[in-house]
């Protein structure tokens, strides 16, 4: 993972990082990369029926509901559903570190966030290899963005067996455990149809649908 990403999660913006923090970040990155093996899985689905507030997929017994996901997939006839996780060991590392040092656990949390995004990028590039040259992928759209409900987490986990394959589960409030997991919907579009939208540096196309609002470090 890139150290700059970790620093961004920690709130540094091109500022000079003190030596202690830099050294700890390096050490913790190393132990994360040694200890944790990211796992991922993805599967493609044909779009059966598109309407402006839901997308139905072939072989998926429930639709993806909401205007924002429909907009996201408006030019896609085929999509990929992907899940990435750092596994239970990432949670153990967090719990252990919290008991010993909050400073380290803060750094570790940022390292893990950067690491799972890294893994999501790798998963996405595997998907990219499978599409035609004339095709392009949309950005990764996750449950909780816009009006795509978080309950989709649980439905996808059960139907795509991500609980068995990857060990991802949800809590009653639909949060994923392990928390360092990503579930996302990626649309496949014909290249020429691709809208010339400006991308945010995070990969999202706008900040409106995003939960982070003022606490986003990209916006700062």
């Amino acid at each position, binding site marked *: 993972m890139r150290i700059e990403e970790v620093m961004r999660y*920690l709130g540094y913006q091109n500022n000079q990082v003190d030596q*202690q923090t830099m*050294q700890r970040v390096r050490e913790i990155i190393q132990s994360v990369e040694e200890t944790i093996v990211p796992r991922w899985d993805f599967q493609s689905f044909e779009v059966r029926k598109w309407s402006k507030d839901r997308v139905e997929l072939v072989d998926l017994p429930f639709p993806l509901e909401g205007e924002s996901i429909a907009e996201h997939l408006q030019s896609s006839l085929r999509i990929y559903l992907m899940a990435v996780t750092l596994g239970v060991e990432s949670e153990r590392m967090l719990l252990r570190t919290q*008991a010993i040092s909050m400073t380290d656990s803060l750094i570790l949390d940022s390292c893990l966030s950067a690491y799972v995004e890294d893994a999501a990028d790798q998963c996405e590039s595997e998907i990219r290899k499978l599409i035609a040259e004339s095709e392009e992928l949309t950005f990764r759209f996750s449950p909780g963005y816009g009006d795509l409900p978080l309950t989709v987490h649980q439905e996808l986990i059960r139907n795509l067996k991500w609980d*068995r394959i990857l060990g991802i*589960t949800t*809590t009653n409030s639909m*949060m994923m455990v392990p928390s360092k997991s990503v579930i996302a919907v990626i649309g496949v579009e014909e290249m020429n149809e691709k809208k010339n939208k400006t991308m945010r540096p995070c990969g999202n196309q706008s900040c409106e649908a995003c939960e982070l609002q003022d606490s986003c470090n990209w916006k700062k």
Partner: protein
Amino acid sequence: MMSREWKEQLGRNILFFDGAMGTMIQAAGIAVPAIPEELNIDHPKVIQEIHQKFIQAGADFITTNTFGANRLKLENTRYSLPKIIAAAVDNAHVAAEKEGRSVQVVYDIGPIGMMMKPIGSLDFDTAYEIFKEQVLCLDPERVDAVLIETMTDISEMRAAILAVKENSSFPVFATMSFTEDERTLTGTDPETMVRILEGLNVDLLGVNCSLGPVEMAEIVKRILAVSNTPVIVQANAGLPMRIEGETRFSLDEAAYAAAVELFFESGVAVIGGCCGTTPAYIQKLVEKRDCYQPSQKAKGQSGSFVCSSTKSVNLDDGAIVIGERINPSGNKRLKEAFLQGDFQFATKVAFEQIHHGAQVLDINTSLPQIDEEQVMIQLVDTFSGLLDTPLQFDSVKATVLEAALRRYAGIAIVNSISGKQSSMDRLFPLIKKYGAYAVCLCLDEKGIPHTAKERIVIAEKMIANAKKHGIPEERLLIDTLVLTASAQQAEVMETLEAIRTLKAKYRVKTTLGVSNVSYGLPYRPLINRVFFTLALGAGLDTAIINPGAEGIVDIIHAFHVLNNQDPGAVSFIAYNDRKQRPESQADPISSKQDNSLIAKLLEGDERQVEKLILENLKRKAPLAVVDEELIPALDAIGMQYEQQEIFLPQLIRAAETVKGAFELVKSKLAQDHEEFEPKGTIALATVKGDIHDIGKNLVKIMLESYGYRVVDLGKDVDVDVILAAIRKHQIQLVGLSALMTTTVAGMEEIIQSIRLEFHGVKIMVGGAVLTDDYAKQIGADFYCRDARASVFVADQVLK
């Protein structure tokens, strides 16, 4: 095969399970509902035909279509749990009748779909209840066994096994899923799984799903090598491949059967299939039945293993250190932490002992002011899945020991049982039920005997009594009792004599609480070291001791060399190398050589901070040091943070470092028989539904660094817990955190509940999705944009 004859067949003939229900449903040409268990009622014929095909293929056991038939997964179905379960069992019977062959109907249980504590939010008791509900729906006349399968968490597996065993008399088959790295997704290795499952006395154990037979081969080999229970294997049809949106598996029937042959030969007793295996796969396997005399499986490996969920420790592997430090009676800080319901400090003590070389940790929660059982349960939950080190539960209360054994996802040691009849009657059944080890004290109704001979008489009585309960002597750790040399000098050697005699005559283990010997004498560490060395020489297997005490671990390493337990002294040399290496000190030379308190706090240099504070304490009153040194330094650091000269990691590092300085101030006050009065008490909680608590923990550190007492209620906290804490600690300020929009709604409800019951309690909120406006909307008094802001709020509210 006639009903219940399978037990006699086991080991004489290889027996066969069916294959994949899910794969067959998908191929059945009907729309697969989100809840496949509904098909039992909506399309019974489809399910019956699947069963029939597997029976035709030759399966001896057929599995009901109930993998997800639990309260949580069936939440959104129109049918009740009993109805679905009854229909599923009926379908299996209808199929068997149609085929005219007697097969075993096995009720299938899959995972609940939530992660257990401490990583997830599923509580052991809740998991148990969810499984129990299913078991209570089963008709003993119509179900021959229960299969608990595809489990990845040994803790959840235990809850399921106990639910079946305590609420029925069905045989239990237990299988877990492993990944290519030969562990389950939650980190359990095959040997540890076998030991924990055998501890609960299951009838069949093994592995299923996730991998094909080829990838599984090594795991199966490892299981067979240690298991004394018949082994079952249900592999997938190879590895899944996604072809044009469809899942297919890499092995066809012939290739699958060829790969599975290895299991026939190596002593697997029951074979079936998992994902991707159709009746054709099972038929190919059954065809091979007669080609094989099921090879008599070699007896499982011996050894005396205690286990956490992720690690086994062999008590036969030289002298084992059982860390004694998690005991409030000898540790004031720990006592305070227990009283406050704070378990992080205990975790810290645990890690320190492990760092020093403890291989097992003793946990004692005896404190008159607390609910010992609750604290024990909390500690077991906190440590489970967090520590690799197996645990020893230490209490005089049988209820506390039972609560701990019940929840612990491992093989524990119970400390202790005495030779009193009442103690044995109460505790040996628990040892048997949970497959635990027991520390057996050589004392009885008449007290501690003086001589080795008399103590051995008691030990022998206990060995015999344990045997009556079905507990082999290898599971007993006999404590021949250490008396203090200052009071009973003549009896010190009797203790060791008893160890020698027992070790010569029995296969029991021995244990001692070593440091008792020096009580009342000066230079205790020396007496302890010498006695410990002598005890090792007498044959001591385990010592309950402080591994951080000087020389203890040294002695063990040296002893292993002299006792020929460390071939080539390899471990000893490595240990010596580690010791010689100076502790790597992250002590980069700062360019300015700034030795101010601020600089040292920012660097996290605890030793220099300590030095500076001690100097100050010579010149100033303790409270003046706080007001004139510590707080101004923290304020200055806070300003640097505001101005983005430093960032969050440094702010938190400084706050953590200052805690050590506060300890010095506190102990100085204690010397003067004064107590440090916290500036006020604040309750913090991450609200129900939210499990992200790093923000809350940062707030806690900041508040504590400013001298506030924090009652940390944890994450995923119920409103009732918050209300109770406000009442109990007379809280004036509550801090709530939530990370997700969905849980902010819950925050609003909590605020309303607090307002209803308490007047004047102020509430501050924080979390990624909150804003000042949003905080006002939900009725909070203060919004904290970061951890530091909480200090301003506290200063304002609690001034």
